[in-house]
C-alpha cells in the first residue's frame, strides 16, 4: 500500500451553509471516514484547520496568514493508504469535500514507498 496525503480545499465563499446543511455534511463525512476506516484505507483521518494562522519566511519575517486572495482555503488533511492513484482517486470521488464544491489535492508520501 502507498500512503497519500489528501489536502482538502474549500471555496472561499461568502454564502455560509445553514445549520442543517452543516449537519448533513458532517454526517456525510462520518459515513465516508467510517467506510474507509473499516476497509483500512484511512491511515489518519487528519483534522480540520482553523481559518487563520502565521506564516514565517526566510529572514524571520512573520505575518498573519494564510492570505485570503486565493479562491480556495486550506480546510484540512487526511492520510490515506491505497494501492495506486487510481484507488486513491476512487476514494476521493466519494469524499464530501467535493460535494461542497471543494477540491482535494492528492500527493504520494515520498518516504513510505
Amino acid at each position, binding site marked *: 500500500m502507498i500512503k497519500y496525503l489528501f489536502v482538502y480545499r474549500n471555496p472561499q465563499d461568502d454564502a455560509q*451553509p445553514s445549520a442543517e446543511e452543516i449537519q448533513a455534511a*458532517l*454526517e456525510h463525512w462520518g459515513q465516508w471516514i467510517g467506510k474507509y476506516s473499516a476497509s483500512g484505507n484511512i491511515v489518519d483521518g487528519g483534522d*480540520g484547520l482553523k481559518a487563520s494562522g502565521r506564516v514565517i519566511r526566510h529572514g524571520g519575517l512573520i505575518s498573519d496568514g494564510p492570505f485570503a486572495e486565493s479562491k480556495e482555503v486550506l480546510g484540512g488533511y487526511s492520510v490515506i493508504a491505497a494501492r495506486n492513484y487510481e484507488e486513491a482517486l476512487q476514494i476521493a470521488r466519494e469524499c464530501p469535500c467535493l460535494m461542497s464544491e471543494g477540491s482535494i489535492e492528492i500527493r504520494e508520501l515520498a518516504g513510505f514507498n
Partner: protein
Amino acid sequence: MSGPIQLAEHFFRQQSGQLIATLTRRFGTHNLEVVEDAVQVAFMQALQSWGRRGQPVDPEGWLFRVACNATLDSLRRRQRWQTKIGPALQELQMDESAPGGGLRADFPCESEIDDDRLQLLCLCCHPQLSVESQVAFALRMTCGFSTVEIAKALLSETETMQRRLTRAKETLRNAVDPLSRQDFISGQLPSVLRVVYLIFNEGYNSCDADQSIREDLCEEALRLGGLIARHSAGDTPPTRALMALMVFQSARFAARLQSPNEPVLLPKQDRSRWDRALIGEGVRWLRSAAEGDELSPYHLEAAIAAEHCLAPRFEETPWLRIVERYDLLMQIQPTPIHQLNRAIALAYAHGPQAGLKSLLDINWDDVPRNYFLFDAALGELHRQVGQFELAQHHLRRALSLNPPRAERQWLHSRLAAAKNGCAEPPV
C-alpha cells in the same frame, strides 16, 4: 477522545439557538452580531474537524468553547476589549485542547440555558420591531434557521429577508439593553406567545411552503412553547393554553396528508391516524390552563381544537359548542378570521342561511382581501342556499387567490356543483 458522528436531529439548529442565547447574555445584546458570527465560525470548525477526527465526547461543550473564544477574538480585534468588557471576561478564555475538563465550570447548566434562551426570545420580540420582523428574527436567533430557510418558510425573497434581519439587528443594537431588567420576561410574554403562535400557524397553515420546512416550524414553535412553559416567569395560563392548542393541532398533522403531496381536508381525514397520545397531552395542557381566572384567545382556540380532536366522526362534531366558543372569542378578540370561522360553524349548527347571514355581517373593511377562505365560504354558502350566480362569482374569486392544492380541488368541485344548480351540502 472522539467517536463516530452521532448527532440528534437538528443538533446544530438547536445548538445555534442555545449558543447565541448564552453568549448574548454574557457579552451583551449590542454584540449580538459578533456572537452570531462566532457561532458560525464554531460550526464551520466543527464541520472541518469532526468530519476528519470524529465527534468529540462533549460536542456541546466543544462548540461552546470554540464559539466563546471566537467571540473574544472578534471583540479584541474590534478593540473594544479594554474599554468595554475586557477585564471582567479575561478569565473566560478557555483552553480548547482541554478534553471537557476545566470548562464545565463555565458551561451553563440546563436551567441557565433555558433562561438565556427565553431572554433571547423576548429580545427578538422587542417592541421596536414589527411583528413580521419579530417572527423572522426569532427563527434566526433562537431556532437556528438560516436566512434562506426563513425566507422559504415565510414565503419571502432571500434578499428581502436578509435586509429585514439586518435592520432588526441594527434596531436592537441601538436599543437599551433590556436583558438587565428583571421583569423583562413577564412584560414581553404576550408578544412572545404571539410570535410562537404565528410561527406555529405559519407551519400549520402555510399554503405553498415546502412540507419539511412547515413541519420544522411547528416543531420549533412547540419547542419554544415548552421552553416558555418550563420557565417560572413564562408558565402562565395563556402559555399552557397555547401549548394545548399547538399540541391538538399537531395531533392531526400526519392525517392531513394522504401521500407527501396530497392534503386532506378535515371532513375527510382518517381520524384513526390522529395521534391519541398527543390529544391526551393537549387535554392535560388545557386542563392545567384552566387554573386561575384568565381567559385568553388561546384558551378558546384550544377548546375549539379540542372539540374537533375529540369528535369520533366529522358528523359528530359538536358545532353548537364550537359556535359558543367562537362567540366568546369574538368578545375578547374580534377579528374577521374568527368571525369567518364562527359563520362556518354556525352554518353546520343551524344551516347555511344562518351561516351566510353571519358571514355577511362581517365588516369587510377589515378583511384581508387576498385571503381566499372568505370568498370560498361565501361561495359555498350561497350555493347551499341556492344563489348559484353569486356562488360562482365567489368561488371563482377564491380560486383566483391562489389557494393551496386540497382547497383548490374542493373549490373546483363546489364550482361544478354551483354550475349544475346543485345546492346539496357536500358528502
